[in-house]
């Protein structure tokens, strides 16, 4: 433990404050009794899809595409998730199957 307990608590509160500001800001800007402008409600409808796309890429941001195995474990596992989900449509099965395959790939195949 590098910091004192009080300093540690200070960091925890700073992280909490930063996080909470980003979570509350939209609700402060557009309170319930005020109809948000049309562009905001339109954005709310399409943002989730765009954000999921961003988060998928975000999860893959540290993959080294130019060095072996060129992101093969990630791509294969994502293909497996997609195929499983298309086939059975079971969220849990898709995630467990893809993750299990990925673990085998990074622990046994592409070591």
């Amino acid at each position, binding site marked *: *433990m*590098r*910091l004192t307990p009080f300093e*540690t608590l*200070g*960091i*925890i*509160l*700073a*992280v*909490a*404050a*930063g*996080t*909470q*500001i*980003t*979570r509350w*800001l*939209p*609700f402060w800007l557009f309170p*319930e009794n005020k109809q948000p402008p049309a562009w*905001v*409600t*339109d*954005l*709310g409808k*399409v*943002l*989730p*899809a*765009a*954000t*999921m*796309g*961003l*988060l*998928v*890429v*975000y*999860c893959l*941001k*540290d993959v080294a595409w130019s060095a072996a195995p060129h992101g093969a*474990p*990630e791509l294969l*596992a*994502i293909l497996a998730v*997609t195929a499983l*989900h*298309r086939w059975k449509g079971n*969220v849990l099965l*898709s*995630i*467990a199957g*893809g*993750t299990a395959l*990925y673990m085998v*790939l*990074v*622990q046994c195949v592409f070591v």
Partner: protein
Amino acid sequence: MVYQRSWRMAFQAAFPATIPVLTGYLCLGMAYGLLMAANGYGPLWSVLMSAIGFGGSMQYAAVSILVTAFGPLQAFLLTLMVNARHMFYGLSMLERYKGLGWARFPLIYTLSDKTFSLVSTVDPPEGVGRREFFLCISLLDYSYWVGATALGGLLGSFIMFDTTGLDFALTALFVVLFLEQWKGKERRPAGAAGVACAVVSLVVFGPDNLVIPAMVMILAVLLGGRKLLCA
């Protein structure tokens, strides 16, 4: 009686939806407890951070701050940047969280990536109120994260099997939720725009600075194409 029953129904509907989050948070939360313990911060501190901060990936980033000199302002600013994506979540949830009264406080306080991905996509089944359903999802996810952190801090060092790659559960969950969004034809252009903007941002700005430029591009594309996308 009716009140109690509606909570039970909400819990029964919410719990299965949160199972993927349970597995994901169990791995990442335990890993976080372990990481903190390895840096000399025992379960008390890691649990406090998880319970008050509740910031997922940001808590990992904050470990690097906890092991250098005391820098609360740096921690605050870094958090604002890393978590700026949460503003997207709030914007998307304005309608769905409307009229929920006191419940808005815990709902917004715990609106993490995972919780957002569920509450923005899953609807309460018939006969279950929005408030009860969304609260069950949010509080379950929250308790998974805090509980897993405690578990990691306390018992993590006894785990013997090789957990390398277990964190892929997170990626897999986002892929599945992306596919769920993809089912709606009208949402496909937005989904594709999200991936494209993030890839461009990754190539241009690198993995450590990807989020904010990607968000700016996504906003520009979605607002620019609003007439086409939302027609």
